[in-house]
């Protein structure tokens, strides 16, 4: 009758409880599967698979210069993914982090663009705060639509991301264009005090990474150890039960989206006030979407996400290395990311379910 109860196909049966070992094993297994599949692809397009794997998966960790770039890239991915995961666990699917990231960058840029002469150590912290505000405000549109208008938050947050990209274009081609910038769609370069201080001399890693790690630990404490985290999860997983217990589903949605938006906004602010140093069109190379992958690869767990963000960042850096040393086209990195996530989603299914093959049924005689 059903395709999955057909005699030749197994059915998924939910496990009583998922084992911790299996949960921890899922990401490396997915990585192994994705790696093997992609190696086949590299052979097919005539690249040396060993050189690619070396450049992509090992090289990022082998030199301090490379690794510091990995850390730099980890920052925004980690921050956004932590924020999103809180929502995802509460079954609030904010997939508009890209837009919230952009709004955070825009809000933060307002200070150096409007007050290019301002000096003082208050500037960059203020920018980061404004970034949080910008991201949270943009996400609050989605929250309002979801809670008050009952609209699907996936679609609203996605559409808002596409609008945010146009808003950024508008600002950069219009009012916020650098007057001495030869008409290029980018803002003025920010003054010194508008930049987040560098953490490790000689690299581009800045203080925002510490902030990100601190927030990750905070996320872990809140989600695993506090009543607030419990309420959020119950609100998402069993809204009716939550309702009986006196928690409000709308409240969980608002909180999830504001946290997710705020974190993405902070990441956006830290990018413009960090490695980029101005507002421009390419402030995000899809961090908002990549962070969704990071959140899932990390099992939506704050500690897991630290690992997956680090890994994803290394994959970006490794992909660049592979281009330089193994002449691998950049598109191959995207293929790798996509197939890795798919492999993980399958692997995690095996953690949650087991396959049950239908044995011939011995029927009693009529």
């Amino acid at each position, binding site marked *: 009758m059903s395709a999955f109860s057909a005699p030749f196909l197994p059915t998924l049966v939910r496990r009583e409880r998922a084992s911790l070992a299996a949960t921890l094993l899922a990401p490396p297994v997915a990585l192994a599967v994705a790696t093997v599949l992609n190696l086949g692809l590299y052979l097919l397009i005539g690249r040396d698979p060993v050189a690619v794997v070396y450049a992509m998966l090992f090289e990022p960790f082998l030199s301090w210069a490379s690794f510091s770039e990995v850390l730099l890239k980890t920052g925004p991915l980690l921050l956004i993914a932590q924020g999103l995961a809180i929502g995802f666990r509460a079954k609030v699917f904010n997939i508009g982090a890209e837009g919230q990231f952009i709004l955070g960058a825009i809000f933060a840029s307002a200070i150096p663009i409007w007050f290019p002469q301002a000096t003082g150590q208050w500037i960059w912290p203020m920018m980061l705060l404004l970034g949080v505000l910008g991201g949270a405000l943009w996400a609050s549109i989605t929250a309002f639509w979801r809670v008050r208008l009952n609209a699907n938050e996936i679609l609203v947050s996605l559409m808002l991301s596409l609008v945010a990209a146009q808003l950024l274009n508008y600002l950069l081609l219009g009012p916020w264009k650098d007057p001495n910038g030869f008409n290029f769609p980018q803002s003025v370069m920010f003054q010194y005090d508008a930049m987040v201080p560098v953490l490790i001399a000689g690299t581009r890693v800045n203080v925002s990474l510490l902030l990100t790690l601190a927030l990750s630990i905070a996320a872990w404490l809140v989600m695993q150890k506090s009543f607030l985290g419990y309420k959020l999860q119950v609100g998402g997983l069993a809204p009716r039960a939550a309702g009986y217990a006196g928690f409000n589903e709308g409240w969980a949605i608002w909180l999830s989206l504001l946290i997710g938006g705020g974190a993405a906004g902070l990441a956006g602010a830290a990018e413009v006030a960090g*490695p980029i*140093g101005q507002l421009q069109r390419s402030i995000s190379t899809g961090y908002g979407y990549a962070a969704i992958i990071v959140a899932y690869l990390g099992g939506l767990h704050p500690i897991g996400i630290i690992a997956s963000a680090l890994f994803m960042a290394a994959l970006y850096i490794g992909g660049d290395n592979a281009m330089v040393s193994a002449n691998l086209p950049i598109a191959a990195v995207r293929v790798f990311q996509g197939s890795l996530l798919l492999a993980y989603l399958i692997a995690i299914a095996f953690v949650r379910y087991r396959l049950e093959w239908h044995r011939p049924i011995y029927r009693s005689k009529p």
Partner: protein
Amino acid sequence: MTRDLMMSRRNVLASGLALGVSAFAPAVRASAPIKVAGIHASPVENAWNSVLHKALQDAAAEGVIEYVFSEGVSGTDYPRAMREYAEQGAKLIIGEAYAVEKQAREVAVDYPETAFVLGSSGKESGDNFGVFGTWNHDGAYLAGMLAGKMTKSNVVGSVGAMPIPEVNMLINAFAAGVKAVNPDAKHLVTFIGTFFDPPKAREAGLAQIDAGADILFGERIGTADAAKERNIKSVGSLIDYTPRYPDTVFANALWGFRPILSAAIADVAAGKPVGKDYTAFGLLKEGGSDVAYVKGVAPAEAETAMEAKRAEIKSGAFEVPRITDEPK
């Protein structure tokens, strides 16, 4: 300290590679080719990057340089790729600084031994950071001279990405070429507002055709498709599009990178600082920009007049006006 350590590791790796290579290479070259790295923000098949890529490949084929490259390196990854190649011992790095103007200059400061010559909208900096712009307006002007004599509706159109100075200069030069031979001609301009969307460039071209244009100048790909569909002629930019649109694109405003590259290589070889603006080497009179056209499409006297002007530009007697204001 850490960087020194890492460099030595890389040097070991690199020299090992070099040994492997030189064992097979014929040992007849007088001077060793210079190690040049190309860092392309887009795939090398992209029109602009293909011009750089081809010049670099040609130079490599002639044995002048040893060429390695990466492509599709964007945003914050770009400075990292620059460092990567500098660490690997590239003597000259060719690329584009458009989205990373400040960071690219910072990298150059960190690697004083490496010469950087990048496409940029800003100025050169220090001894080892040179810049170049994309000036193929000489070719655009000359193509405009042909178009001006060919239009029957007396309306021509240009489709560009965004009103940035180089695009403006190019479109203004095309318009100036048209007006030079046909002062009454009307010139339409559309900016599609994005650097990449060929279907939109096509729609913009169709809009201009419907507004009366019978020759299109396509700064963006996709424009020629509109011309092809409506059986009118169009002009290509940067590279020669005639083989791809044989009956449509009758002229191209070519840009040549080889003179810029050669000048930069010469400076590196002579140990001279490259911190200067190489843009002018891309002009027609240096052998950079040019017009490529299908003979016999434009009236013969238009071609003669154009060739005469081309000779004037080459000799330096005439200079195509450089107007960077947004064309209207």
